[in-house]
């Protein structure tokens, strides 16, 4: 990944985010370099601090503490959303520090205890924060080794470290980290300490029991809604029926008569509170609120015309050759428009927060991907100094980008201050669907040309309203241009909030690109895998595509072959993926069953193979939703899908046979792995459906109606 391709996931954190595009730091994650020097106060990490922005601390003590019993506690601003950071980060620490993985505990997302972090998104945890944590641990190890050398009166070079014990084989004497540190902070520092080379890795490549396993199978693990301090009141809030609807009048008198119910109004914030959530819910039902209807606007059908009309002029992201020349060389042209609808994050845990206000300080337990930005937002909303706000992040019940926005935390904090008691705000499912920052609806236009010999000569790609991430072409095409118009933060495009959704923009861009490539292969009369390989000099992608084909047992053929097999490739967050799928399509009903999915992935160095497979399997299952059913319907600001009856998530009965292939590529530093395998799911299903029945559906999700319309 090049520095300029790193985009912030959430505008709310943009203003205070660490400027990771510092050249030194990002060079570290560039392909081919996997040793880096933790330079004590690393220049790259200090620079944002000089600019007055938060940044990762340069003192390694911020990330770890060694207790007298030898246990090591790791402190990180990242949070556990299910993606396994709670396991992967202690693995990195154990590796560099030379302590046992089982001896490492971890504290995550607590703004009082953990070093600053901008948020858990963008597959940044291992890829970007990993080097920071490794560097800190490497420096700590070097300092401990120097202390041990003095203690044992032996040259440091002769010492060996295992499981936190330093041994001098010469004298047969040893001393543990715990003895050296004696529960104290380590005051010494060293500059230019190298992290371990891949060849020295012992913890990488293992798949230990997840650190959250016991908490999660026993139900004892706490989520934000499980935090109920004594006296906590549960709040239910008056919400508008539609985005853009304005409150005219509200009558809370009937609700206020229910014993124990407290009514609070502070501007737009109107809440009924009770010590039982369900009673508060009953009281909310008695509130009579009148809203002026939202002004007429778009709906889920007219939205695409609206986006094209409203989007600003496209910006060129990349260009090579000459489009006119490409046209001239083309014997045939395929030009198509691809659409995708708004998609919800729909974590099973709704946005939840509990806040407690005491002695001018507030503590907020929040289900959030961004505890440090939430701390700033709460401080601002309550007019408190930042040091008077503590955000604690318990387990988060799924995020997928949707919990980068955390309005419930602000609401809980405001209410706790107003009523002087702890307050919990947990969204109802219909609030979850209403306030979700959806994946943006988008349009992609592609015009591409084929030479008489079946080579791609022209590629002109424009994405509207999704974002530019991975819009650029990776197939070899001499004359091409990539443009993006109106990223998802652009004003006035979308009728409600949109935001990052697992691999933001990349699902949209990959669906369009890989559908189009398949149409070109069909036009050329060439097998779609062969066609891709004939235009592919990227060795990492060639390798994953060939690995997927081998595992799948891909037999070359021209589409539509009737077999229902498809392929799609892509890249995201420095990782390359190729996916193959087999589907069965019922022509009469338009119903699709995805029977088998094979995904091969090259993510560079693999920290935790089972962790990677968990993410790959999860991406495959989750991706079936945006491919086949998930679409938020709305009209004039009113969200029509408000629960899981009409908004269909993937289920057990959808489950294909799933096979994951991990390519070991130690020459590239660990890249992202929470998002990449989802990016190919729209296109691979679309391509397999075309191969099955000859229906080329250009809009996600590929519903039975859209298939039947193409038959």
């Amino acid at each position, binding site marked *: 990944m090049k520095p300029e391709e790193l985009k912030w996931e959430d505008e709310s954190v943009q203003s205070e985010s660490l400027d990771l595009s510092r050249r030194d730091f990002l060079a570290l994650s560039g392909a081919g370099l996997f040793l880096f020097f933790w330079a004590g106060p690393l220049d790259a990490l200090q620079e944002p601090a000089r600019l007055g922005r938060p940044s990762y601390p340069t003192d390694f003590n911020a990330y770890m503490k060694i207790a007298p019993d030898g246990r090591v506690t790791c402190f990180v601003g990242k949070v556990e959303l299910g993606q396994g950071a709670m396991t992967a980060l202690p693995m990195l620490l154990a590796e560099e520090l030379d302590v046992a993985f089982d001896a490492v505990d971890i504290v995550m997302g607590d703004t009082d205890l953990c070093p600053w972090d901008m948020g858990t998104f963008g597959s940044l945890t291992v890829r970007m924060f990993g080097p920071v944590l490794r560097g800190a641990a490497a420096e700590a190890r070097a300092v401990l080794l120097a202390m041990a050398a003095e203690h044992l009166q032996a040259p440091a070079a002769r010492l060996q470290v295992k499981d936190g014990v330093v041994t001098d084989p010469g004298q047969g004497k040893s001393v543990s980290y715990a003895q050296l540190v004696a529960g104290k902070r380590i005051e010494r520092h060293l500059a230019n300490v190298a992290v371990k080379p891949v060849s020295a890795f012992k913890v990488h490549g293992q798949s230990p029991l997840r650190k959250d396993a016991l908490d*999660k199978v026993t139900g004892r693990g706490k989520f934000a809604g499980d935090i109920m301090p004594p006296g906590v009141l549960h709040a239910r809030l008056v919400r508008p029926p539609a985005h853009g609807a304005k409150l005219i009048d509200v009558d809370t008198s009937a609700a206020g008569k229910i014993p124990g119910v407290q009514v609070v109004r502070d501007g737009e914030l109107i809440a009924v509170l009770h010590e039982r959530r369900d009673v508060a819910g009953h009281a909310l039902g008695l509130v009579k609120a009148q809203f002026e209807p939202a002004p007429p606007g778009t709906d889920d059908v007219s939205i695409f015309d609206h986006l094209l009309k409203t989007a600003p002029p496209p910006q060129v992201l990349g260009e090579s050759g000459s489009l006119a020349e490409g046209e001239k060389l083309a014997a045939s042209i395929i030009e198509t428009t691809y659409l995708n609808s708004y998609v919800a994050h729909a974590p099973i845990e709704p946005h939840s927060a509990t806040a407690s206000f005491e002695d001018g300080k507030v503590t907020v337990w929040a289900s959030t991907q961004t505890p440090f930005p939430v701390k700033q937002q709460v401080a601002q909303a309550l007019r408190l100094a930042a040091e008077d706000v503590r955000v604690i992040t318990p387990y988060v019940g*799924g995020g997928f980008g949707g919990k980068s926005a955390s309005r419930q935390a602000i609401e809980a904090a405001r209410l706790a201050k107003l009523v002087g008691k702890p307050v919990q705000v947990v969204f109802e499912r219909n609030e979850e669907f209403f306030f979700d920052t959806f994946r943006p609806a988008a349009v992609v236009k592609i015009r591409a040309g084929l030479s008489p010999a079946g080579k791609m000569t022209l590629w002109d790609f424009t994405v509207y309203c999704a974002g530019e991430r991975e819009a650029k072409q990776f197939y070899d095409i001499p004359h091409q241009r990539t443009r993006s118009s109106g990223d998802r933060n652009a004003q006035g495009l979308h009728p409600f909030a949109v935001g990052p959704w697992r691999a933001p923009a990349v699902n949209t861009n990959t669906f369009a690109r890989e559908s189009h490539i398949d149409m070109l292969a069909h036009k050329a009369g060439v097998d779609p895998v062969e066609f891709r390989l004939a235009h592919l000099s990227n060795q990492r992608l060639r390798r994953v595509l060939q690995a997927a084909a081998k595992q799948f047992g891909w037999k070359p053929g021209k589409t539509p072959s009737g077999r229902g097999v498809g392929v799609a490739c892509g890249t995201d967050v420095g990782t390359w993926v190729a996916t193959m799928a087999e589907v069965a399509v019922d022509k009469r009903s338009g119903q699709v069953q995805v029977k088998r999915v094979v995904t091969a992935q090259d993510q560079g160095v693999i920290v935790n193979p089972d962790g990677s497979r968990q993410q790959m399997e999860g991406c495959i299952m989750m991706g079936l939703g945006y491919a086949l059913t998930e679409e938020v319907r709305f009209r004039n600001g009113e969200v029509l899908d408000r629960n899981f009856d009409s908004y269909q998530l993937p289920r057990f009965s959808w489950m294909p046979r799933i096979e994951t292939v991990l390519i070991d590529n130690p020459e590239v530093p660990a890249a992202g792995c929470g998002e990449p395998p989802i990016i190919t799911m729209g296109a691979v299903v679309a391509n397999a459906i075309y191969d099955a029945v000859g229906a080329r559906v250009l809009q996600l999700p590929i519903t039975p109606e859209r298939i039947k319309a193409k038959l």
Partner: protein
Amino acid sequence: MQRTISFTLNGKAARLTVDDERMLLWVLRQDLGMTGVKFGCGSALCGACTVIVDDEAVRSCSTPVKEIAGKRVLTIEGLGHEKHLHPIQQAFMKHHAFQCGYCTPGMILNAYALLRKNPRPTRDEIIRHLDDNLCRCGVHLRIVEAIEEAAGVPRAVVKGGAR
């Protein structure tokens, strides 16, 4: 109607004076501290709130507490604990059959209800039984494999490192 309801909760006698129209979910979570029972959708559509009532899996978000009078209620807290996990919990650990963990208690308890009735279910029977329990992280395959293991069903072997 406010009344006193007696039932068995995780093997112990429980008595509670409560508005008997309230939903079991909120009584369990707030009045009795059983926070392993999760709120997901409030409309019996996701299964996160699943508990066992007299060996049947029920959606506690949509079950008025009056319906459990005199019955046995089992929540995840009563199924097993750290030192003595139920075989289904052990299998969920071994297979990493969870990610965020929010749907997990409901999944485990629904699997428990299945195995009480059908100790050796086929894969199709497991899938049918669990189909209305939603998992957004996409852990479905591991959940099925964990239940197969807990039931002692021999695992299908696929070549090439695939599952």
